[in-house]
């Protein structure tokens, strides 16, 4: 389990909630679930940490642009 990634997902989620004017806790929950899925998938498929981190960054970018367009 990559503990640091869970903490960073929580912090980034909280910051984005404030920046995007969402109810606090919305993106933190989504990000934490995302990291959990990638963490479990990483263990299952023997993905290295850099690959998992790359996936997380990719998902964050997708969520960021999703937030911009969907609202």
């Amino acid at each position, binding site marked *: *389990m990559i503990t640091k990634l869970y903490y960073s997902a*929580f912090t980034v989620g909280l910051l984005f909630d404030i920046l995007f*004017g969402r109810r*606090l806790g919305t993106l933190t929950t989504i990000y*934490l679930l995302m990291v959990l899925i990638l963490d479990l998938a990483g263990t299952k498929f023997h993905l290295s940490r850099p690959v998992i981190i790359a996936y997380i960054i990719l998902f964050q970018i997708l969520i960021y642009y999703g937030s911009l367009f969907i*609202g």
Partner: protein
Amino acid sequence: MRTFITLIFFSLVIFFLDGRGLLDGPKGIVQTVTVPVQYSLYSAKLGLEEVFSFLTFWKSGEKRIKNLEQKNLELLAGENKAKATEEENIILRKQLGVNPKPATRLLPATVLGTLRYLEIGVGGNDGVAEGMAVIYLNNLLGRVEKVTPKASFVVLLSDPQSKVPVKVGSARGLVSGQFNSSMVLDHIAQTEEISDTNPVLTSGEGESFPPDLVVGKVGKITSVETDLFQKAEVISLVDVNKLTTVFVVQ
């Protein structure tokens, strides 16, 4: 797994507390830092869009400038006529002893972003309250839906939540938002005549919005004669995505 469960528990607690408005105090403190950051990000986005729009301008630019010049001449003529009517109106009001219209206070607000809602940089600390109208050059943009100490969220007219009683000439109707992209004018009796020459203005009914604010202009009529009411598209005269300052009607 323990870290995940602990953090998700905290997230849900924060979600619940924020929903109840119990985190408004700490949020206000954090917004002291985030509001200027949001404003900078939004300004940078507008700047970038401007650069890219210049690249595509050459295609339709000349034709648009000619159209605008023509429109400008028409508006100048209209402005003089409107001034004369206003003066006449003031004199008539004085003569008939009718009180002048009550003055409304406008609070300027910087735009912080446009997602589903328009986020503006004034909040409860500045006297903003839920339900207040937000305008730009007498054009209605929406109403304040949520207020935090230093920022507020405005439901735009194109939002499905938005319903505004309006008048088009002598006809009365209702403008509703459609999927955050367009507006529809509805509930206009078939006997009424609507055309794109008449602007769509707020009627002031229900006291939800001040009267005579511009909502837009009538676009394509989408109803048929057999329908109970006439239906038409409403085209906004303001591009909300390019605004940097708006005004809250207090």
